[in-house]
């Protein structure tokens, strides 16, 4: 009796989850289907689900209008710059905050918390002016600048380091390791999962960042996927097959990476997102 109940309950759960999952995935499926239709097919009523002939030509057509190759390169460089900078510098600062004693430590950590509590738009105008003054507008460096250090990363890794046992470090100290060696050879390898979580988090939000790339890089060959897609709308106004083809060109790399590494991704987001 109880077993029967249980399986009925599970069935009900599956029904609800499948309905939810359908709502999440259908827009993507429709995006794919629309992207291979002709303009005429896309506006048929009632909607035509599959095109007569798959119009893969929509993809090269979009790539001819927008420099997707540059978008990919710019996006990857931006993500790499921000990930390397924020993970490396945050790990250093976090180690100092978690394990070392020095005057002014609390003031520094206060600055970190202050940055985290304030909405990011507060910094944008002066950051823009800095980039402008340095003559970096319309460069890849401009994209990296605001993410090169990370208050959030410092906070996250400090929490992470504080949760690790001190035995190994003390042993290393007795063996004559310098502070830097202890950090570099003991702490960093021990906290791999924390560093990866921060890296994934940083990469994902760099990828999704829209306002900053929109502001600093107006010339089309210096745009990221995120801001480049935003300009797509202006180019094709209502040619939805091509708009959808362009959108898919913009999101497939991240979707693919996510689907391959979904466990890492989700656990990374769970550990870092929960501390934001």
């Amino acid at each position, binding site marked *: 009796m109880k077993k029967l109940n249980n399986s009925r309950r599970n069935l009900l759960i599956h029904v609800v*989850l499948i309905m939810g999952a359908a709502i*999440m995935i259908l827009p993507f499926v429709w995006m794919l289907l629309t992207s291979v239709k002709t303009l005429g097919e896309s506006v048929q009523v009632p909607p035509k689900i599959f095109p007569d002939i798959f119009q893969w030509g929509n993809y090269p057509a979009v790539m001819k209008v927008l420099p997707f190759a540059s978008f990919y390169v710019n996006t990857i460089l931006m993500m790499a710059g921000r990930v390397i900078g924020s993970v490396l510098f945050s790990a250093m600062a976090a180690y100092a905050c978690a394990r070392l004693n020095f005057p002014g430590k609390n003031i520094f950590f206060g*600055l970190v918390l202050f940055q985290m509590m304030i909405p990011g738009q507060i910094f*944008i105008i002066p950051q823009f002016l*800095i980039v402008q003054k340095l003559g970096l507008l319309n460069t890849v460096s401009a994209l990296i600048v605001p993410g090169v250090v990370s208050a959030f990363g410092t906070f996250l890794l400090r929490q992470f380091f504080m949760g690790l046992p001190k035995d190994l470090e003390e042993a290393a100290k007795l063996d004559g390791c310098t502070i830097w060696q202890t950090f570099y050879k003991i702490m960093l390898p021990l906290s791999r999962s924390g560093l990866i979580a921060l890296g994934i988090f940083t990469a994902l939000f760099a990828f999704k960042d829209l306002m900053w790339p929109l502001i600093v890089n107006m010339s089309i060959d210096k745009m990221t996927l*995120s801001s480049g897609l935003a300009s797509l709308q202006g180019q094709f106004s209502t040619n939805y097959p091509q*708009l959808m083809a362009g959108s898919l060109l913009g999101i497939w790399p991240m979707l693919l990476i996510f689907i391959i590494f979904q466990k890492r991704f989700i656990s990374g987001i769970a550990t870092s997102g929960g501390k934001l």
Partner: protein
Amino acid sequence: MISKNENSVEISMEKNIKVKKKISKSMLNEWKWGYIMILPTFIGLMALNIIPAIQTLILSFEKAGSFGKSTWVGLDNYKKLFQDPAIIQATYNTFKYTILSVPCIVVLSLIVAVLLNQKIKGTSVYRTIFFLPMVAAPAAIAMIWKWLFNSEYGLINYFLAMIGIAGPNWLSDPNVALISVVIVGVWSAVGYNMVLFLAGLQEIPKDYYEAANIDGATPLRQFFSITIPLVSPTMFFVVVTNFIGSFQVFDTIFMLTDPNNPAFKNTQSLVYLFYRSSFVLNDRGYGSAIVMFLLAIIMVITAIQLKCQKKWVNY
């Protein structure tokens, strides 16, 4: 005898001094490394965040003229702000967006998380699917929804017509447009918050549910008496961060509407106005005042939430 004693005292004093010297040396070494290791982040934070925050505050009292020269105008920007109908409307829109979207996000992501926390097959597949919108660029998400919302050829109105409902002009009807933005916002955010809830749910000991089962508590009762109280710290976190995020809504609005849209006024948010004033109209002083106003709102709301948490969050 005496001299021997004096000698030993001297020796011990010398030892003391030596030890002190040694400590201070290792202490100095620790200080040195502390400063070296925080240096990059410290410089970055100062240059990119702390000083800019102060500059934005100062800018909000200035009017940026041509050639990058600004003049002090006192509270003029703020006076203008509180009389600007666009700001009043945007503030109203931002509040409405937040109040509509946050409860939907919290409730839906909690429900999905609870269902995925059951012993069923395929949880990782579901989890992946629900998380998908999170890894898509906001511009792409907005474009696909614009297409779904299309009043003539959109899939949504087609489905509504099938069940006999005449769908609205989702994006250009001033009464509906903001709701459309909320739908996109909720759809995009459920997966992310579900992951956070799932992490919170997994920390609840299974024994509690077993004990409740033995006592004959219904699943619904268990949800309200065990799950909700024990997941309340996570829920508090989700509520606070989503409030802050919703007040900063920009991407979807930027993509879904444009100044030619009849519903434009009814959808633009404070951050959107900030963007327009600062970077399209190049009135940085006014843009700074808008963002300071936003900061004030967010601080007040967050302070209220921190105060209220004692009433419903169990630590």
